[in-house]
């Protein structure tokens, strides 16, 4: 039998009001989180693909594909086999924001690593790093089967 909306809301409220659970002690939570730092990197059978720069548009120039308007961010497009990586680098009050997107079928749920920072992609294959300082960095996108590597991205 399907539960009516009112009954369901009543049940939700009952669950809310009888929930007497509390957070675990902070030191136990920290221990559990820190545990993961000991994880050994698995020997990798990951296919490594080097990406090549195809387009690099400096900030202030016309936006690619648009008749008017200029980009605030530096835009770069890299090719990596059947895939491409779009990057936008934008200066912020503190450092730079590097936003990107992996384009192409089947490359999803990946982690992006840059300047020793690891972030996860969202469902659209987008990722973002904040507060990146000026310098030259490698960017790696790894979905467990394939790794796209972009070497020597200059951020300044």
């Amino acid at each position, binding site marked *: 039998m399907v539960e009516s*909306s009112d009954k*369901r*809301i009543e049940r*939700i*409220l009952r*669950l*809310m*009001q*009888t*929930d007497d*659970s*509390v*957070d*675990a*002690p902070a*030191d*136990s*939570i920290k*221990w*559990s*989180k820190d*545990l*993961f*730092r000991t*994880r050994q*990197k*698995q020997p990798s059978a990951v296919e490594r693909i080097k990406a090549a720069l195809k387009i690099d548009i400096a900030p202030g120039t016309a936006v690619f594909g648009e008749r008017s308007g200029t980009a605030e961010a530096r835009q770069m497009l890299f090719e990596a086999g059947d895939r491409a990586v*779009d990057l*936008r680098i934008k200066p912020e009050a503190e450092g730079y*924001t590097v*936003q*990107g*997107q992996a*384009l192409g079928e089947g490359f999803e*749920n*990946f*982690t992006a690593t840059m300047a020793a920072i*690891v*972030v*996860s992609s*969202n*469902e*659209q294959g*987008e990722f*973002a790093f*904040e507060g990146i300082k000026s310098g030259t960095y490698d960017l790696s996108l*790894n*979905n*467990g089967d394939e790794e796209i590597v972009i070497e020597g991205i200059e951020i300044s």
Partner: protein
Amino acid sequence: MTTASEKNEDQLHSRSLERDDAALVKACRRGDQSAWEELVDRYQRLVFAIPRRAGLPESEAADILQETFLTLFQKLDELEKPGKIRSWLVTTAKFKTWGVVRSEKGHHAPATEQEMELEMASLEDGSPLVEEALVTLEEQHLVRTALKKLEERCKTILSMIYLTEPSKTYAEVAEAIGVGATSISPLRARCLKKLEKILST
């Protein structure tokens, strides 16, 4: 690139917060520390509640929490159904709790998982470790998670009306969120509907 990439950081962040369990486990397998921390944050309260409900003191419950995440850490690459991580954590914490409860009664812990299952199947209805009690804990976890996804105003309204003791009046809630008192009743109903919708998806 889609226009989504040009949306603000909050949207990217909130989408990342909503990574489902399977995506989190897969990210952990790739060595993503932030995914592991998100998993611990998401489930620590649920895991900790199981030994506490069984009457174990905080220190022993904390040990069980740590042992449960240690076991997850060790078996991360073997989990057959990453999307069922919540059930896996509940079962693991339940077994570890039962092991402690049992040894405190002077019995040796069961040697195998099957033996443990058999013993647990014979628990009396009132036991805090019977399936029904654990389902309630899981449902409470889901409601807590859904509440976090509501916008701030709804969180405030529902918390003030349902989660404070004594419950706040509509006038007090109205003052807190800066609307007229007559708006609270429809707002409350709308927030409950939103909560219900989140829980049904």
